[in-house]
């Protein structure tokens, strides 16, 4: 059996993998939802929904598994974070419910008013979910006012301070761009031409917010920059990040959308990595007294549980990757409206 500290470290990395998997996969379908209202016709909206139709619920399972793994591997962090973000997470839940239902029900009848309602629901819930993930991430970067007994008393308004708002804008613009590139890959004709325009616009917005967020992070989260002094190899991540971002317009100019998509995946992965590196070894930094922060060493489950879970993950993850690959293979190619479509 591996020692307790190594197991905690492995689980921190595995949670990072789940987080990256989730943000890359659900990132594009949240982005498609955000772009949904600017589509020109009902057919285009149906095509957009069906581009993610067979994929979105599998993508959301990454979030569910991330939650379950956090609960099991770092139960104290799960308990503190979920109760600290009570209102924000309730809103997130409502958004996720509404999103699932909007997708499922929108095209069930022809009535335009019915469809308009669910169109709005699909957009608003996708936007809200993307935004709240950023807000939660931004707050964790800043740290939470966590007292000695691991509780946080903070209202939603206090959690909507400028820095988390900027990070919320970052996730929204990033996912929108990611979703637009995905749509470009999955569509053809007029819709694809529009998706190309959306990519450029979303890229512009993202670039502005990205620079703002970078500056803000340097000012607001000095801990993050100290990490780079201690571990210079971490510089790989921001360098890769910038290269990946720069490669998106390059690939689009060269009509290589698959590279653009790979680059936006890499951008998401790099940002998630930077987030993890910035808070490590904390899971919940305390702003009241840094000594009270929940670290991977204080929040962890017992060595035995972490060990069993590692075994479960080693058996389970190859299966998961296989199904995911099979599903994406079965539903490869351009999206078309069929009789089983939404």
């Amino acid at each position, binding site marked *: 059996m591996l020692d307790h500290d190594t197991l905690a470290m492995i689980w921190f990395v595995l949670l990072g993998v789940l987080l990256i998997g989730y943000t890359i996969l659900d990132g594009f379908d949240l982005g498609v939802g955000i772009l949904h209202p600017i589509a020109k016709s009902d057919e285009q909206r149906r095509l957009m929904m069906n581009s993610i*139709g*067979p*994929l979105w*619920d*599998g993508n*959301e*399972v990454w*979030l*569910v*598994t991330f*939650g*379950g*793994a956090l*609960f*099991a*591997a770092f*139960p*104290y962090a*799960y*308990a503190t974070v*979920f*109760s600290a*973000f*009570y*209102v924000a*997470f309730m809103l*997130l*839940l*409502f958004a*996720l*419910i509404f999103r*699932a*239902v909007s997708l*499922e*029900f929108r095209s*069930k009848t022809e009535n335009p008013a019915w469809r308009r309602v669910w169109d709005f629901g699909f957009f608003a819930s996708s936007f809200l979910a993307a935004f709240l993930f950023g807000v939660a991430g931004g707050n964790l970067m800043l740290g939470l006012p966590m007292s*000695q*007994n*691991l*509780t*946080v*008393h903070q209202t939603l308004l206090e959690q909507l301070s400028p820095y988390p708002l900027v990070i919320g804008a970052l996730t929204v613009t990033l996912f929108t761009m990611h979703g637009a590139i995905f749509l470009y890959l999955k569509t053809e004709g007029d819709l694809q031409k529009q998706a190309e325009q959306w990519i450029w616009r979303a890229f512009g917005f993202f670039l502005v917010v990205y620079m703002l967020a970078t500056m803000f992070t340097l000012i607001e989260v000095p801990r993050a920059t100290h990490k780079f002094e201690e571990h210079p190899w971490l510089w790989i991540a921001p360098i890769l990040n910038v290269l990946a971002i720069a490669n998106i317009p390059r690939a689009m100019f060269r009509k290589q959308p698959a590279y653009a998509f790979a680059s936006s995946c890499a951008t998401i992965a790099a940002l998630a990595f930077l987030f993890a590196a910035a808070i490590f070894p904390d899971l919940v930094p305390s702003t009241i007294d840094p*000594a009270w922060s929940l670290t991977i060493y*204080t929040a962890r*489950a*017992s060595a*035995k*549980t972490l060990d069993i879970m590692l075994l*479960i993950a080693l058996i*389970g993850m190859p*299966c*998961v990757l296989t*199904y*995911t690959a*099979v*599903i994406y293979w*079965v*539903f490869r190619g351009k999206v078309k409206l069929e*009789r*089983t479509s939404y």
Partner: protein
Amino acid sequence: MDVEVLSRLQFAGTIMFHYLFPPLTIGMGLVMVIIEGMWLKTGDVSWNHAARFWTRIFALNFALGIATGIVMEFEFGTNWAAYSRFVGDVFGSALAAEGIFAFFLESGFLAVLVFGWDRVGPKLHFFSTLMVFLGSCFSAIWIVVANSWQQTPAGYHVVDTEVNGVPGLRAEITDYWAMVFNPSSADRLIHTLIGAMILGGFFVCSISAYYLIRKRHELFARRCFTIGVVVAAIFSVASLISGHHQAQTVSRTQPAKLAAFEGHFKTGPGDLHLFGWPDAKTQQVKYGLAIPGMLSFLLYADSEEPVTGLDAFAPEDQPPVWLPFQSYHIMAGLGTFFILLSCVSLVLLRGGRIFRMRWLLWVFVFTVFGAFVANEAGWIAAETGRQPWVVYPSVQDGVSMPGLRTSEGLSESVRAEQVWWSIAMFGLIYTLLFGVWLYVLNDKIQHGPDEGASIARRTGSLREAAAALAGHSRSLLGSNHQREERR
């Protein structure tokens, strides 16, 4: 109301709404595996239409199951932080296993099930249906194991913890398989799955019976009704056996719960109530009808054997009585009704007599509501009967382990008005969801399964059209044959 009552109400409301869907999808999964298996075996295209029809309805139920299920995972952390810290080491690992082993399997293959008809071959499609069914059973396994561990904990010890100098307690696994196969896991899992199959059977019967009454899609309806009745009959009888076995386990592992189920206030020979109105104040069951000594007889095969009553427990350790008693009796009563109805119908299926008995078909149209109620009532009994504990105290290797009271599990940082607000929102959204679910379900039922010709026209594939016509006429001939035989 205080945070505890509100959080319990919120959990009860959201889990009960969620629990409308998982047993339905598990049970329907079985029926769909049978129907698609029939299609593969016979090549009769009307089986294919039946499979497609149930898949559409399945997808609708499944979407609601997922959407409402994510809520549950979040609520452990949002509303029950202290509980999460206490059980995370044990409960979290089961939940994570559910995610990795069950949810990915279900959601992945569901995509093939719903959207893959024209993209994969019939065998791979059948395999996907099987995987979705298996995945939904897996998810039941892990969540019921996690719940059972809280009722009859095993394979763990409670240790002192210290974070930031603040002392606490938590349960840690010592023996994983003892935790998984704790004393009640097998009984409760089997009973839960049986309940799901009964619901699936009656759900299919309900829609089929409606078509039979309306004289629509008759071939489809007869076939599906027959499958539904057979499934319902097998599992209704099985539920009696498993329920009896489970009651014996509960009498050993959670005697206070069994006493609450039966309104058995004082230790002594136990009567079996058919119905009644337990009154905790007077410690009596009013207006009841009981078979004297029957409870003792069922548990110990001796009507004189004393059964532990609620008086054996300190007042603060006693569960409420009225709610567990009533929900338990509603479940058991409905279960008895299911056995009678499905077994009588099984006999009437011979020669198709049942298809001419409109009143009995009407009974089937509505029995599905009873099956929903029975599944819900069973869980209400299980969960209220274990109060005041969320994790039961136990003895492990001669050492007594403290339990966790429900009142000790709350989030310290959450305030009553926040819970109020979220209950109101859940109430609103779930009411809306329920309405939309019924609306779309009705829409799909009114639309009905595709008939052979129409489906072929829409896809425009010659080969499929030919196959559809051939299958269709064959099936028409088949039913003509049957009619002649009956004459």
